[in-house]
């Protein structure tokens, strides 16, 4: 399909293949997955939120993903059958498996694992074979999320990504390695480390170690790539680990940077963003002059870009599950059209790149024995994604309740962490994949009922504030031992009600103290064993892990 720019209305095509007639994976080929008629004069390759997943995994997309305010019912807040209907995806097809949650265990056993950076390498190499000067951009959350990544302080991921040869990168969880380590790695990166919103905390001026943008001359086109790191790093993650840095959305500074690169002759302005999707939509509406936003952080995978004004926003999923290819026709200093494809990395269909497989195995070899130790078995599907709870989080909360002898458990609403199929062994690596972080201490403390309400309201507002610039992009804190009702349409302070202690069925008393266990506190000096030890001990005792269906959260106004 030929694509052109009609008057001022930008039109484009997305080639997310609808392989609905292909009955089984055996009939889906690598050529079909990668098929793309090279278009225009510039190609972008986007991968984001890998969370250190070097090897193929299973990853179930969310069932519950509620949009509020102007984003109610808008993508990416569409899931399951509605999502398939919106994009014309047939039930049971590879696209349905990759993009929706239904029948996940059955489809996973049919279509196999997803991701693996050796498969990603094959895809990147194939695009580069067609367009040698394609720009590969990494949206961040790369140096975090696995056993080997933790043990090497991100070095395994740095080594493997260097093998992929990206052109630029932006950041989020990387900073939880601590600013000293981040500075050390960034100083040696053979590509651009970008973030127009990474500032020096003391002087409130752009940080020297991170450039706001990088120019590329590709296909005769002057391309400017601007970076945007996660805006709320010191709030959502422990700021004491990187006290020299300040972040924020800084949309005014973004506009200044866009104007600056346009003034220097940029014909195409690309924003490599870790804002999260709704924040990027708002940014596209308040900042003029951005052609393409490559969106990360909220882990959404969309088969077509979303158009805001004349800006296209591309969402490329997480955990190595997808790569986006965006071909652009840039003429006379303007983006005239695009062609886009969200490529699912179906690991049984895409042949791994042998050099990359060797490089990955070399990183993992020192830890192979510890990582592969089987701790237990999944009795049912373990997954995390969703606004309120996931069965993996239920296991973690159960572990906190029993191992730490608590009445209530709190587990962070992060969006990373692969899924485990029913009957699958749970290895130590699997546990680390859903718990690994540099502030893992499982605290045990007392909180009043009143303070628990304050905590719940605070986190809910980070997710359901109707203005995206006030959202932080995670999911709701996972709760064990306590049920509650949430009205997502209400303002902060009025969303949470009917808080109930599940063990007794009694209402939470605002003035009573409750014993609360949790992990991932952003406070310095938090004490307790690392969460992975707590979960490992719990799973060892159970043998087979079959969390009960969680009906403790009642959602209103979705």
């Amino acid at each position: 399909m030929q694509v052109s720019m009609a008057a001022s209305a930008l039109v484009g095509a997305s080639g997310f293949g609808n392989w609905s007639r292909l009955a089984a994976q055996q009939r889906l080929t690598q050529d079909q997955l990668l098929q793309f008629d090279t278009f225009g004069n510039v190609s972008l390759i986007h991968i984001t939120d890998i969370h250190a997943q070097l090897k193929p995994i299973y990853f179930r997309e969310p069932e519950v993903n509620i949009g509020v305010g102007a984003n109610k019912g808008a993508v990416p807040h569409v899931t399951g059958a509605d999502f398939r209907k919106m994009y014309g995806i047939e039930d049971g097809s590879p696209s349905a498996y990759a993009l929706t949650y239904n029948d996940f265990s059955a489809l996973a056993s049919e279509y196999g694992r997803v991701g693996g950076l050796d498969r990603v390498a094959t895809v990147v190499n194939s695009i580069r074979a067609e367009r040698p000067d394609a720009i590969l951009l990494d949206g961040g959350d790369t140096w975090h999320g696995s056993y080997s990544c933790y043990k090497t302080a991100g070095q395994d991921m740095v080594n493997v990504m260097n093998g992929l040869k990206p052109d630029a990168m932006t950041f989020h969880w990387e900073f939880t390695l601590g600013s000293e380590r981040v500075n050390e790695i960034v100083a040696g990166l053979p590509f651009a480390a970008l973030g127009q919103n990474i500032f020096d905390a003391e002087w409130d001026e752009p940080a020297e170690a991170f450039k706001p943008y990088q120019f590329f001359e590709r296909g005769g086109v002057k391309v400017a790539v601007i970076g945007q790191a996660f805006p709320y790093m010191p709030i959502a993650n422990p700021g004491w680990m990187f006290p020299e840095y300040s972040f924020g959305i800084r949309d005014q500074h973004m506009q200044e940077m866009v104007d600056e690169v346009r003034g220097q002759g940029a014909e195409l302005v690309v924003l490599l963003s870790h804002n999260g999707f709704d924040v990027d939509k708002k940014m596209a509406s308040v900042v003029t002059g951005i052609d393409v936003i490559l969106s990360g952080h909220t882990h959404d995978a969309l088969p077509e870009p979303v158009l805001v004004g004349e800006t296209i926003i591309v969402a490329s999923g997480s955990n190595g599950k997808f790569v986006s290819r965006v071909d652009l026709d840039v003429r006379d200093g303007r983006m005239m059209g695009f062609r886009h494809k969200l490529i699912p990395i179906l690991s049984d269909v895409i042949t791994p790149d042998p050099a990359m497989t060797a490089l990955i195995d070399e990183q993992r070899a020192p830890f192979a024995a510890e990582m592969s130790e089987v701790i237990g078995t999944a009795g049912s599907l373990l997954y995390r994604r969703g606004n309120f709870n996931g069965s993996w989080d239920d296991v973690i909360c159960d572990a906190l309740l029993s191992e730490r002898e608590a009445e209530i458990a709190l587990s962070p609403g992060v969006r990373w962490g692969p899924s485990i199929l029913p009957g699958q062994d749970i290895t130590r690596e699997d546990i680390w994949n859903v718990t690994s972080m540099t502030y893992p201490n499982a605290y045990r403390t007392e909180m009043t009922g009143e303070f628990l309400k304050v905590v719940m309201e605070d986190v809910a507002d980070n997710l359901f504030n109707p203005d995206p610039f006030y959202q932080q992009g995670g999911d709701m804190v996972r709760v064990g031992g306590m049920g509650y009702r949430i009205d997502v349409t209400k303002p902060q302070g009025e969303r949470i009600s009917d808080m109930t202690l599940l063990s007794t069925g009694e209402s939470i008393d605002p003035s009573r103290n409750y014993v609360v266990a949790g992990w991932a506190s952003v406070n310095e000096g938090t004490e307790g064993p690392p969460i992975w030890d707590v979960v490992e001990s719990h799973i060892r005792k159970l043998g087979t892990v079959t969390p009960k269906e969680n009906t403790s959260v009642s959602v209103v106004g979705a």
Partner: protein
Amino acid sequence: MDFTRRETLALGAGAALMSFLPMRANAEAVDDLIAAFTGGAEMGDAGVDLNAPEIAENGNTVPVEVSAPGAKAILLLAAGNPTPPVAQFNFGPLAGSQTASTRIRLAGTQDLIAIAQLGDGTFARTSKTVKVTIGGCGG
């Protein structure tokens, strides 16, 4: 999330304190301060900019910048603080620009309000909500 015992107590106390604050009286105090600055004149919405983070990284030291090209003075108020007046910046005729930046302490989530007396003597008002959160669980 902030979950140490000390923080828990401090935040619990803060939350309780806020709920007892006479909000009505506070809003009236802000209205009175604005009236005193403007003499009760009408306020436009163009000509004054207020730059502050949407969510404060640290509520104890929030960077704020106000600017109003050609203005004679800018009044900055933190509507939700126990003492709302933050600063009044007066610009003399030789001022190179009518911009000021400072760091302020915010008791909790609230609106910052900036009112400028422009070069022609008229007034302009802008505001921005700054959220002070206990933080925690970004994904």
